[in-house]
């Protein structure tokens, strides 16, 4: 009986493992009153993507800041002075990019002059 319970538990652990299902990571950011950017990190099934590597890059691919999303699936950073993109890296091939133009509440003309490649 114990073996059966252990087997079923293992099976359930495998079937419901987030890694196995490999949901798509997504993130959405918004400007806060203090000129900081707050990003929500989720998987596409709306589960919280906690402790995910987040990298803030300038358009010349220089790393400006890196960190991890917290247990509530939140990552905050101060609004940079140049065009940037945020890379949410949930593992190889599971990457989502947030361009500064995707940030809610941010003027789309803010870095327009510098945004050209």
């Amino acid at each position: 009986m114990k073996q059966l319970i252990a087997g079923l538990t293992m099976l359930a652990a495998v079937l419901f493992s987030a890694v196995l299902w490999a949901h798509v990571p997504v993130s959405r950011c918004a400007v806060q009153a203090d000129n900081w950017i707050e990003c929500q990190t989720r998987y596409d099934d709306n589960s919280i993507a906690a402790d995910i590597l987040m990298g803030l890059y300038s358009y010349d691919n220089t790393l400006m800041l890196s960190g991890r999303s917290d247990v509530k699936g939140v990552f905050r950073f101060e609004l940079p002075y140049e065009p940037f993109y945020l890379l949410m890296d949930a593992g190889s091939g599971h990457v989502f990019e947030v361009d500064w133009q995707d940030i809610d509440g941010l003027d789309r003309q803010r870095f327009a002059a510098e945004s050209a490649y």
Partner: protein
Amino acid sequence: MTQLYVAVLSLAGFVCLMLAMPKHFIFVTQSTLGSRQKHVLRTTGWMALLLALLIAIQHWAFDEGLVVWLGWLSVVGVALVFCLPYWPWQARAAKRPARRKARSEETEETGNLPGPSRQRWQQVAIAGCMLLVLGVVGWNYLQTPLKPLLREDAYKGRIGPWDYTLAEINTAAPEVEALQLGVKEFLIRFCDSCNEEIRIAYLKVREPRTLRSSGVSFSGNRERYVELAIPPRATLEDGLWLTVVSKQGEVFQQRLEIEQVSPAMADFMREQS
């Protein structure tokens, strides 16, 4: 038209295999079966069935083609079994007066209805059930959507030295999921000879800035699958970018027109932006 080819070849194959059996050969032709005829009929029958299978696989790929072939085998097999007794040129069966007499005597004694009318009713019921089953199977077949990569709207392209077919899994608008972002599912299949040369493929809206930010990778072996999240302010000008990495480490990137790959996703992005 391919359905017709598969059906006719399956029927021809079964007829040949049936005639390769002495009992059925005599029933149909009223002559005896020679050993050479038997060999030729058997070979022809199996070749016809094999040809039907190859045509089905060539048209619908292995998995769906196999199912279509088995479906037609079942239909023509059952049809042959039930039609054979009505073969018009069969030898007349010898009369059996003694048994008829016995049956008529039994009818007189018990007052039951004669046998043939009850048999006819049973035949009609069986035929009705079979037609019902065939109708249900046929209706389900017609309702089954064509595989995405076999649809006419599937995008065919070439990246580096490899040909590929890319298709959205369904033609509906992207599903709005977590954080109000649209998600669209795609399948890609590289040519059979080049599939082994490809290590990984990625799909992304907007041009990747580095290989690491090439987007979400396709998973799977032959038919590779990906769920693509659409950035909220992306425009059609940003394009859909396919990145393919070979096993030797070569990287190929290509911009695809979103409108060509997925009109529904293009409409969604127009509304969104």
